[in-house]
Every structure is written in structure tokens, then in C-alpha cells.
């Protein structure tokens, strides 16, 4: 059963943890313990899964014992495994942070199970090899995020949630319709199977269906012009929740685009991927301009997520060039994956930092902040590193991510898109430095009633909050300074993605339904 069981655990562990947490809903303490243990296990097994996938190639598990395409199959290729590790990292860091920040009320109203289920949905979406199952995981993730979003019941949360829920529901319905159409046409739900069938037939209708998926996933990813739900809602929940959302949710959309548009829809790349390319270019610039317009710490960060999604779409879109050399395609995809990983870490971290700042100064508004560099240099350092990494300055993870994507863009000769990417990089720096100038460099805001807190040493809870921030900051530094192993990994992942046959073979399609437990007599009607 080893290593197959590793594919299951990233889904099974958080679900069981969630179920247990619900059973223990009266005891916040038990939930906390389950929270820490569950996410630690998720992270640990995620890493083992990644190592195993790295060593042994793609790992699959056929749920209920029915082989693909008849049953649901969970598949872990390098991309999936990496994303699962990221889920684990997010889960672990955010849960530690929550220990200090989530009030008992939040815990009694299901903060922990919701969080676990968010992880389960995300991990399930990363691992599943079945399109309808993907929809189910999307829904698990979304409804968990709905519930997390409104936890607290404030006006802003409700307003944000109305838009978030409506738009995501519309997107789910588009996805569901697309799945229905796909099943109608292919008669199968297994991704590898569909990919194989689509390789055989060359029909324009595939492109039409591909566009349905693209729009559905692009909404979830927060691409231009479909991202409206994100700026409306991401800054409203407690900061740990925002951090989790920022790290994971849009990335699931990006992941799905990567999966579908490397595995299944590769017939008409000039059409589909060009759209992705330009969507990416416009997304990055609108996102970063949106951030530039804001004066609130979390809003800047939220809207900026969109901009970063643009780089990922751009990386995927680079496949559009019809005679792109293999190694450039690989670099583009690897760059895109590295960008996703980098962005998850850094964006989450910045949100967590904003939470500490809020705890100290009681505001997210830049004009009410100040003096942090003077009085809390360590916190300032943590922010500074992540902010620079986000802006793509060396030698942090963001730089190499950007380098890979831009290099691939130039080598694929997509000049205009590269210009967008570079300008976006500069404007990102602008918005990050804006936060720095106001919140960190400007003098302590003496009219802020909490200003005395700035000058006091940090309490124990704040140090609990620092822990995940420190870990994530180290991660972004390590990804940059010691980036080689990670780049080798992403390049290998890109190689897998660019050769769909590897995935199809690993899933191992069978043509007749079978069941591993054969020795039971077919009694049927008892």
C-alpha cells in the first residue's frame, strides 16, 4: 500500500481532522491540538509524498478499488505533490498563527474544522485525476472559504461574502456545465482518459469546451476581467483567514489551468494559450494598478494577488508560440510553478505581518501607521524581506521566479508581454515601498491611541505570531539563495506536464471494469 497511501493522506488527514474537530466542537483545546497535529501531519506526509514522487515518478491510488477511468483516481505528479506541500506549509503556519489570534468564539464556531476542510478541498483539487471530483473539491474548498469568510459576522464580511459567494457560484455553474458537456462528448470523466481521447480526435468543438473551462478556472484564479470577487472580499475576514485565502485559493484556479491546459487542452494552443498569455499580461498590470490605488495594508496585499496571478497565466500562455523550443517551454512552465510556490509563501507571509502590525497599532490604514522600523526593527525586517521578494528583488525567491518567467518570455519572443511583466515588477515595488514608507519609516503616529504598544516589548502571543512569519521568511530566502534544488524540482515537474503521455501512462487506463476483491460470489439480490 506504500507509497500509494501517501496520495490519499493529504485528503484523508484534514477530512478526518475536520470530522474529529466537529465531534469535539465543544472543546476549543481539543480542536487546537487536532489543528496542530493535523496540519503538521499534512505537511509531513506532503513532504514524503513529494520525495516519493520525485524518486518513483507519478503515484496514483484508485479509489474504491476501481481502476481508471471507471473509478476516481488520485494522482500525484510533481506539480500536485509540490502544491500539496505548499498546502501543508500554509496549513501549518496559519494554524500556529491562529493559536495566538483566533478568539475562543471563532473556535467554538468551527474555525478549525473549516480550516481543515479548506485544506482538504485544496489538496483534493490538487490530487484528483477526475474532472467531476475536481468540481467536488472546488466546492468543498469554496464552501469552507464561504464559511471562513463570514466567521465574525461583521458588516464588511457580509458585504464581501455576498459578492464572493455569488460570483463563485456562477463560476461553479459554468464549470459544472462544462463538465456535463465534456461527459456528453467523451463519455468519461477521467482526466487522463479525456486527454487520451482528445489526442486521437481533432475537433473544433474541443476548443469551444476548453474555453468554458478556461473562463470557469480563470474566475477562481482571479484573472482579468473576472477577478471582482477578490478585491471585494479578501480583506474582510480575520487576517489568518485572509492569509490562508491569499496563499491557497486563487492558486487552485491557477493550478487547474496548468493542469487542464497542459494535459487535456493542447490541441489548439495558438488560440487557447494566447488568450491566457494576454489575460496574464493585462491581469498583472490591472492588479498592480489596483494595489497602487489603495491605502490600506490588507487591501494592497489582496488586490495585488491578482497581479501575481498574471505572471502565472503568462508562464502558461507562453506555450502559445507554435515553434517554441522544448527547453523554453519547460522553463516557462517551471517558472510559472516556481512563481506559484514563491507567491504562496510570500503573500501569506505579508498578510501575517499585516496582522501583527494590526495587533500593535490597531489599524490597517497606512496613514494611521508608522514607527515600526524605529521601534520594532525585527518586524520591519520580516516585512522588508517578504516585500522585496514579492517585488522580485534579488536574491529572494521572487527574483528567480521572475527571472525564469521573463527569460522564458524573451526566449519565446513575446516582447510585449515581457514589457508588461517588467512594468508590473516596478509597480509592485512601488506599492510595497509605499507600505514601507508609511507604516515602517514614517514616525510613530502619536495620535494613534495604541502608539504606546509600539514602544513596549512584544508579548508572548505576538511571539507565537512571529513564529510562522519567521519560518516563511526563511523559506523565501532559502528558495532564493539556495534555489537550485527547487528549480530542479520545478523543471522536472514542467517536464512531466509537457509530456501528457507520462501522466496518462501513470494513471494506467483499463478498458474493462474490475475490482480487487474478486473472491466474493456474485450473489446480487440477497
Amino acid at each position, binding site marked *: *500500500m506504500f507509497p*500509494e*497511501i501517501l496520495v*490519499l493522506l493529504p485528503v*484523508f488527514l484534514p*477530512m*478526518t481532522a*475536520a*470530522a*474529529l474537530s*466537529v*465531534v*469535539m*466542537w465543544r472543546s476549543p483545546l481539543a480542536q487546537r491540538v487536532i489543528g496542530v497535529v493535523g496540519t503538521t501531519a499534512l505537511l509531513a506526509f506532503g513532504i514524503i509524498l513529494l520525495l516519493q514522487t520525485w524518486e518513483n515518478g507519478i503515484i496514483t*491510488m*484508485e*479509489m*474504491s*478499488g476501481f481502476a481508471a477511468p471507471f473509478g476516481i483516481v488520485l494522482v500525484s505528479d510533481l506539480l500536485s505533490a509540490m502544491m500539496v506541500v505548499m498546502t501543508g506549509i500554509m496549513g501549518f503556519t496559519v494554524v500556529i498563527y491562529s493559536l495566538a489570534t483566533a478568539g475562543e468564539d471563532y473556535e467554538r464556531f468551527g474555525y478549525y474544522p473549516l480550516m481543515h476542510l479548506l485544506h482538504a478541498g485544496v489538496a483534493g483539487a490538487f490530487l484528483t485525476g477526475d474532472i467531476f471530483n475536481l468540481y467536488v473539491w472546488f466546492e468543498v474548498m469554496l464552501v469552507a472559504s464561504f464559511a471562513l469568510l463570514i466567521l465574525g459576522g461583521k458588516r464588511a464580511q457580509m458585504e464581501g461574502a455576498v459578492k464572493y459567494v455569488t460570483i463563485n457560484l456562477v463560476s461553479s455553474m459554468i464549470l459544472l456545465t462544462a463538465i456535463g458537456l465534456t461527459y456528453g462528448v467523451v463519455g468519461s470523466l477521467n482526466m487522463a482518459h479525456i486527454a487520451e481521447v482528445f489526442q486521437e480526435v481533432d475537433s473544433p468543438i474541443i476548443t469551444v469546451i476548453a474555453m468554458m473551462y478556461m473562463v470557469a478556472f480563470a474566475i477562481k484564479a482571479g484573472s482579468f476581467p473576472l477577478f471582482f470577487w477578490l478585491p471585494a472580499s479578501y480583506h474582510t475576514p480575520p487576517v489568518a483567514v485572509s492569509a490562508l485565502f491569499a496563499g491557497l485559493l486563487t492558486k487552485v484556479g491557477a493550478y487547474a489551468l496548468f493542469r487542464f491546459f497542459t494535459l487535456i487542452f493542447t490541441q489548439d494552443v495558438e488560440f487557447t494559450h494566447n488568450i491566457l498569455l494576454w489575460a496574464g499580461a493585462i491581469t498583472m498590470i490591472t492588479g498592480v494598478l489596483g494595489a497602487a490605488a489603495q491605502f490600506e495594508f490588507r487591501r494592497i496585499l489582496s488586490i495585488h494577488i491578482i497581479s501575481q496571478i498574471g505572471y502565472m497565466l503568462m508562464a502558461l500562455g507562453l506555450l502559445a508560440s507554435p515553434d517554441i523550443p522544448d527547453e523554453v517551454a519547460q522553463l516557462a512552465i517551471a517558472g510559472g510553478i516556481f512563481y506559484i510556490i514563491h507567491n504562496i509563501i510570500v503573500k501569506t507571509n505579508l498578510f501575517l505581518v499585516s496582522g501583527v502590525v494590526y495587533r500593535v497599532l490597531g489599524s490597517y490604514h497606512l496613514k494611521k501607521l508608522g514607527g515600526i522600523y524605529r521601534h520594532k526593527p525585527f518586524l520591519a525586517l520580516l516585512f522588508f524581506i517578504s516585500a522585496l521578494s514579492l517585488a522580485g528583488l534579488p536574491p529572494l525567491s521572487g527574483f528567480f521566479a521572475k527571472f525564469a518567467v521573463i527569460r522564458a518570455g524573451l526566449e519565446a519572443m513575446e516582447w510585449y508581454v515581457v514589457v508588461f511583466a517588467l512594468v508590473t515588477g516596478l509597480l509592485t515595488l512601488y506599492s510595497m515601498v509605499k507600505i514601507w514608507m508609511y507604516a515602517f519609516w514614517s514616525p510613530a503616529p502619536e495620535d494613534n491611541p495604541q502608539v504606546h504598544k509600539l514602544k513596549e516589548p512584544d508579548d508572548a502571543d505576538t511571539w507565537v505570531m512571529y513564529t510562522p512569519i519567521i519560518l516563511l521568511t526563511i523559506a523565501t530566502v532559502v528558495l532564493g539563495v539556495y534555489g537550485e534544488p527547487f528549480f530542479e524540482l520545478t523543471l522536472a515537474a514542467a517536464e512531466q506536464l509537457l509530456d501528457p503521455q507520462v501522466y496518462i501512462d501513470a494513471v494506467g487506463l483499463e478498458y474493462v471494469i474490475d*475490482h*480487487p*476483491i474478486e473472491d*466474493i460470489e456474485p450473489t446480487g*439480490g*440477497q
Partner: protein
Amino acid sequence: MIEARSLILHTATRFLLPLQLLFSLFLLLRGHNEPGGGFIAGLVAAGAICLYLFAFDIERTRELIRFSPHDLFGVGLFLACLSGVPALLLGYPYFTALWWRPEFPFFGEVALSTPLLFDIGVYLTVIGSVLAIVLALAEAEE
């Protein structure tokens, strides 16, 4: 809405409720072979309790179900998750169906299986979830 109580409704509900619950169990157990199953059964049971809620009040309804809806769906979810584990222990993929047909006095051969366990989990979850929603709303109403 809840004002609309009447003697007939009271009596009818009190009479119907056990029947409905029994029917839901029947739907649950036969689901594998005839239309029915955990969802439908759960929805029927939940509907029955909703009817009870409309006929009486929240206090009475809470007394009736005894458990908190959270416990119901918590246990249901946990059961559903666990129903796949025996297969894992035997070295089969998660959720691989295992069947056990013991002979019972009076009942004869009874087919017990992990899918049935799973369906029970579904049943409990559906009841618990629907009741949690309806009860929360009804309480907010008062």
C-alpha cells in the same frame, strides 16, 4: 410561521413522525438496490423533524433529537471517513467495498458492508446538517 399550530397538526405530526423516521431507515437500507439511499433517507428524516418543529417548538424538537445537530453530522462525517479505512488496513485502496454476510437468528443472512456504513454516515450527516440549518434559523426567528 411557527404560530400556525393546530391540534390536527400536533396529533398528525406525533403520529407521523415515527412512521416517517422508520420509512427513512427503510429507504436508507434498501438504497443499494432500489431507489433510496443515504441522501434521500436523510432528507426524509430531516423533513420529518422539520415538520415536528413547525408543529411544536424548538425546545421540544431539541428534546426529540437529543443530540446536537453538530454531533450528528460530526459523527456522520467521521463514520463516512472511517468506512474507507478497513480496506486500507487490508491493503486495498481507500473505500474499496468490503462485504460481510453473517447469519443472524431470526433475520437470516444479513449483508453488511462498508458502503452501507458509508451510507449511514451520509444519512447522519444529512440529518445533522439540515437540522443545524433549520434550527439555527428557527432560533434566530424567535
